């Protein structure tokens, strides 16, 4: 069936506005607790640098990277600065620190005459189109905390009106950054080799780490949420870079990479696989620098295009709400009953409850699960049947019991003659197995209106009532009614208790308590002798069932 999904496509409905105003593009989200004190920052950064580089190689690294106009944050990565708060400082401060590092002598008491700036400094600080695009991050890290980078997420978040307090972040960076980062490493090693310096770049920080931290903090600041890695609300965004998207294909020309793409047919479409990020990284590890230089651009070429992003996907993980339902109508089904596109029952329990829950939780969709089922023409009475709803991607996931009580009232009022629910409450994923158990193992109590071919007498009633406290076993061959889908076999079932009450003439009501999975209708009419013994056998007459109601599903639910 195709359920109505009002929010299903709204990810695509949001216009992808790139910030038109140049100053907005660079405008950074300012964090409250960032230290802009150069002295403090410098000593902090130098701690990492001294830890990672024993000799003055780090100066060569800074110089080399400034030569090719890397952004300051990426240079920090190659220096192995693990304190991500350091990256949050303004570009001016970061460049000042870098300039100081490159001029640093073992003893740093020398005067300000040494405050010479690297020639790239000015252009790197430019806030116009002239600023070169960083070849290692395509300006992603450079812009991680800018309005431009945040824009798609903020827009999406606001248009969905998510009512959440925390978020988790998953980002996917352009595959071109992997190749270019490797290329820069090769370039640094090469430069150092020329100057007879040994270098170990194993402490380089992966681009993703500072990027996620900066973006995460900006989201915290702008949306007032808490960045929490176990949050059920996930912001997922994929970045790409058009010009370098195919760059990893150079690996296919380097035999030592052992990088092979496979053509796979999926639904008749040929798709290349084997170029996952892991595969690219693994292949690069196998390639000696000399092989890489002979084929790839080293250092990477300057690029005129910056990063771009696909529409972000903001999604809350499923939540669960449970309760018990009473079905008062013999006209509605449990779940939508549609065969070959034709509706056979006007509405269903799932829809009566689910559509109101959809409004309240503002979810994409829902799944209805109940402890067992009853036929369309069977009512579910008594204390009701346990059920739960899986609420997919709710925009409004925090429901207080008071709100659930009101929702329950609303459902009961709207569907007064069809469905009544009770005990509506939030449940956890761990509770769900209880429902399955209820379906398979728990006793059920039924009430049936029965017609028999004899006139009902007190002898007949007595005959039935001798089983009131005496269980017996029946053997049911798969009913003809379900034989087209259920395997043919004999299932023994226990009738725990059976009692009858005489009505007029040929009618009596029968109350039964049975093992889960007993076919009641077949026990009464016999199913052409396929259920043995059946009620007709016990009374030596024909019997048929006029109406059936479920009175109890013996399961404690919801758990609390």
């Amino acid at each position, binding site marked *: 069936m195709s359920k109505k999904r009002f929010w299903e496509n709204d990810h695509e409905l949001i216009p992808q506005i790139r910030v038109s105003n140049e100053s907005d593009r660079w405008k950074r989200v300012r964090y409250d607790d960032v230290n802009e004190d150069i002295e403090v920052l410098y000593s902090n950064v130098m701690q990492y640098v001294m830890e990672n580089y024993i000799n003055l190689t780090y100066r060569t690294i800074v110089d080399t990277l400034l030569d090719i106009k890397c952004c300051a944050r990426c240079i920090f990565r190659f220096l192995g600065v693990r304190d991500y708060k350091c990256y949050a400082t303004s570009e001016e401060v970061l460049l000042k620190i870098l300039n100081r590092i490159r001029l640093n002598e073992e003893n740093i008491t020398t005067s300000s005459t040494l405050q010479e700036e690297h020639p790239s400094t000015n252009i790197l600080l430019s806030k116009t189109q002239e600023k070169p695009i960083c070849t290692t991050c395509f300006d992603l890290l450079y812009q991680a905390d800018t309005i431009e980078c945040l824009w798609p997420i903020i827009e999406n978040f606001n248009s969905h009106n998510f009512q959440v307090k925390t978020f988790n972040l998953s980002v996917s960076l352009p595959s071109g950054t992997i190749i270019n980062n490797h290329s820069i490493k090769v370039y640094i090693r090469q430069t150092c080799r020329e100057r007879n310096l040994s270098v170990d770049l194993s402490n380089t920080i992966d681009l993703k780490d500072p990027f996620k931290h900066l973006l995460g903090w900006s989201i915290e600041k702008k949306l007032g949420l808490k960045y929490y890695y176990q949050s059920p609300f996930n912001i997922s965004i994929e970045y790409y870079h058009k010009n370098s998207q195919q760059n990893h294909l150079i690996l296919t020309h380097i035999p030592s990479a052992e990088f092979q793409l496979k053509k796979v047919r999926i639904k008749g479409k040929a798709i290349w696989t084997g170029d996952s990020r892991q595969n690219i990284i693994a292949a690069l590890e196998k390639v000696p620098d000399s092989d890489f230089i002979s084929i790839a651009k080293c250092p990477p070429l300057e690029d005129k295009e910056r990063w771009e992003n696909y529409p972000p996907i903001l999604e809350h993980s499923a939540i669960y709400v449970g309760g018990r339902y009473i079905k008062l109508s013999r006209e509605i089904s449990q779940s939508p009953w549609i065969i070959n596109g034709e509706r056979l029952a006007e509405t269903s329990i799932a829809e009566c409850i689910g559509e109101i829950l959809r409004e309240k939780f503002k979810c994409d969709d829902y799944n209805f699960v109940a402890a067992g089922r009853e036929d369309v023409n069977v009512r579910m009475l008594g204390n009701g049947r346990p059920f739960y709803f899986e609420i997919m991607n709710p925009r409004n996931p925090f429901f207080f019991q008071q709100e659930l009580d009101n929702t329950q009232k609303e459902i009961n009022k709207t569907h007064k003659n069809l469905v009544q629910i009770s005990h509506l409450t939030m449940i956890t994923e761990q509770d769900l197995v209880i429902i399955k158990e209820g379906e398979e193992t728990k006793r059920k109590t039924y009430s049936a*209106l029965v*017609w028999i071919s004899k006139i009902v007498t007190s002898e007949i009633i007595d005959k039935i009532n001798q089983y009131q406290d005496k269980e017996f076993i029946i053997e049911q061959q798969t009913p003809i009614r379900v034989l087209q889908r259920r395997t043919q076999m004999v299932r023994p079932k226990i009738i725990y208790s059976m009692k009858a009450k005489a009505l007029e003439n040929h009618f009596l009501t029968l109350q039964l308590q049975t093992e889960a999975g007993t076919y009641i209708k077949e026990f009464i009419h016999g199913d052409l002798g396929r259920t043995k013994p059946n009620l007709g056998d016990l009374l030596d007459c024909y019997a048929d069932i006029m109406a059936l109601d479920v009175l109890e599903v013996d399961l404690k639910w919801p758990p609390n």
Partner: protein
Amino acid sequence: MNSESIINPKYDLSQYEKISEKYEKDPLAYLEQYYTKYFLIDSNENTSEDFYIYQAPNKLCVIGLAPTHPLLQQSQKVKSIKFDEKISQSINKKKQNPLSVKSEICVITTEEGRNYSIKAGIVGWVINFNMRLDKDDDLLQKKPFTNGYLAIIKPKQDVPSKALNHCIDEEKYKEIRKLNI
């Protein structure tokens, strides 16, 4: 609905008056609740080896002896009912060729030594033989229209008008066989 009737449901019998009336006249009338009745008339003019075919809403067909079948008309004692072994073994196995209308599924032999051949009657697959007939010799003749059915067949054709277009309904059957029950 008040809370008392939710725990202890009451049934309005006036709703069921008509159906009870019908049932009182014919205790087997309840079968109509569950099946559409069809009949397969003997193509040989001199015999009346007719069958009923009850079709359930899920398209499965129950086949058995019609009231006009000689086994129910004359007092003949059944000696043995032999279901086709090959078909028996093929039940529940996938990728079987469907039986044709004329495929023999069972042979009934009387004490007098007469053999009655039972045909599938519809194009499809036998999914169940009534093995109770083996244990209870009287069943076939005592309860031919219920517990004494012969087999359950799954038609190849889903559309009843196609699967059963060689069969006739109960009214037509009574007309042809001049029955007025």
